């Protein structure tokens, strides 16, 4: 269980002699991720949703508020304690090309988590990689390809596979299907649902598309300029939005066909 409690983050644009403007990226935001559920955080650009993802991954520390994992305060831990936490919470990024090192073959990319875990014997690596490729519906023959030789959907699956090899409890999905074509989106969303069911994973889903969020998430938090506008389970939110901003978002959605 990952708990973010009253998280505040302010970004300052520093001028050469101090001063400068500051933007509140997150204003006392609290979320809980766990229990095999999916929490959606939805907002437009500048809403602070990506900052929230980075804090959940502890890539950055909040200015105030606490991050707890399994009851332990990990807001400001570093070094080994931070690395221990990190392997339990893995990211999947929007830009599937940028998330994979272009100079490495798929096999090498998938070897990285096994190396970093350190608890899987070297002799098992090859089998683990074959297994995970099968699990994400990709041919093991792809292992010798480079990322640029794969389609966007295939690359996104490799990103997911890499995260899974860490055997995490939580996946932070930062706009995982926004860059994909519609037909590929469905494949990746189906895969993520199957994985959640089979492996008991919990998800933090960051996105801007309400219809995907409604389909994919259990609970939804609506963010606007760093402020929480709405929070409810997906059905309630869509049937009976509490906040004006949520209503604006719903009204702005393109027609459903």
């Amino acid at each position, binding site marked *: 269980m990952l708990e973010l409690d009253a998280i505040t983050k302010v970004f300052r644009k520093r001028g050469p002699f101090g001063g400068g403007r500051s933007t509140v990226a997150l204003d006392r935001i609290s979320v809980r991720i766990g229990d095999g559920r999916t929490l959606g955080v939805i907002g437009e650009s500048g809403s602070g949703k990506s900052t929230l993802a980075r804090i959940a991954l502890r890539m950055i520390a909040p200015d105030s508020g606490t991050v707890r994992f399994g009851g332990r305060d990990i807001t400001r831990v570093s070094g080994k304690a931070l690395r221990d936490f990190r392997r339990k919470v893995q990211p999947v990024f929007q830009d599937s090309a940028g998330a994979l090192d272009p100079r490495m073959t798929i096999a090498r990319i998938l070897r990285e988590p096994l190396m970093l875990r350190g608890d899987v014997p070297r002799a098992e690596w090859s089998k683990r990689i074959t297994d995970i490729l099968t699990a994400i519906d990709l041919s093991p023959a792809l292992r010798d390809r480079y990322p640029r030789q794969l389609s*966007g959907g295939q690359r996104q699956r490799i990103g997911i596979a890499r995260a899974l090899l860490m055997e995490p409890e939580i996946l932070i999905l930062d706009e995982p299907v926004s860059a994909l074509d519609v037909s*590929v989106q469905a494949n990746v969303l*189906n895969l993520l649902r199957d994985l959640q069911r089979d492996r008991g994973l919990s998800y933090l889903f960051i996105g801007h598309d*309400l219809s995907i969020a*409604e389909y994919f998430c259990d609970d939804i938090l609506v963010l606007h300029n760093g402020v929480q506008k709405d929070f409810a389970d997906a059905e309630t939110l869509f049937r009976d939005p509490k906040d004006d901003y949520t209503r604006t*978002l719903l009204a*702005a959605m*393109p027609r*459903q*066909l």
Partner: protein
Amino acid sequence: MTGLLDIRRLSVAFGPTRALSDIDLALEPGTRLGLVGESGSGKSTLGLAVLGLLPPDAACTGEVRFQGEPLPWSDDRAMTRVRGRRIGFIYQDPMAAFSPVHTIGTHITRALRAAHPGVGRREALDWSVALLEEVEINKPRERLDHYPNEYSGGMLQRVMIAAALVGDPDLLIADEPTTALDVTTQASVLGMLDRIVEARGMGFILISHDLGVVAEACREVAVMYGGKLIQRVALADLKAEAHPYTRALLEARPTFGKRGQRLSTIADFLPSDWFDDA
């Protein structure tokens, strides 16, 4: 009455890669057509081909007639008189569509004077102010002196719409005009396009990957895949007469009410040798 646009057997190739194959597409005046396809379908290439703005290494065959006459692609001077005056164009990424070292006013007046060579500087300036007002930019006179980086994406997109309208074109081609924008901005830009196209009664081609976006502003849909035109159908008949690929596009979208169900994928509708991506 002659048609507005008549594309006949249009093919485009970049070296060995075929971007478009044998496209036939005709538009009557006032037609509002959504051109839908996924990445690599050739939809943007089609838009640029009509304007004669494909890169020089593109090999282009076939013919495009505009208001009854073939478009003079090989004669760039003549095409210059078509672009902006008879066919307007809106580009997908407003942030990249403006030269960063020129003011918004410079951009608009240049577009204006390209469409109306006789217009003087002062007149162009007043006209620009009126245009910015039409696309709902506040304090247009001050705003003319601002640089693109001082505008938001939505504002820039509205300025680009204004610039595309200066020549009062008979056809407007918009290439993914809202893809780079937020949902709320997208809604307002689409609404504005819808009103403007309606009011001027011009032909409209909206290129998009999103059937929902197209449905906001068009009456007809043309679906493309792999450089080919799969089908063309009135929006109202889309569900009833959908080609299997179009069905796949519709069904694969996660929409309200599909909660908890498995999404259909393209493989559910079409044999696997039909498409490349698994």
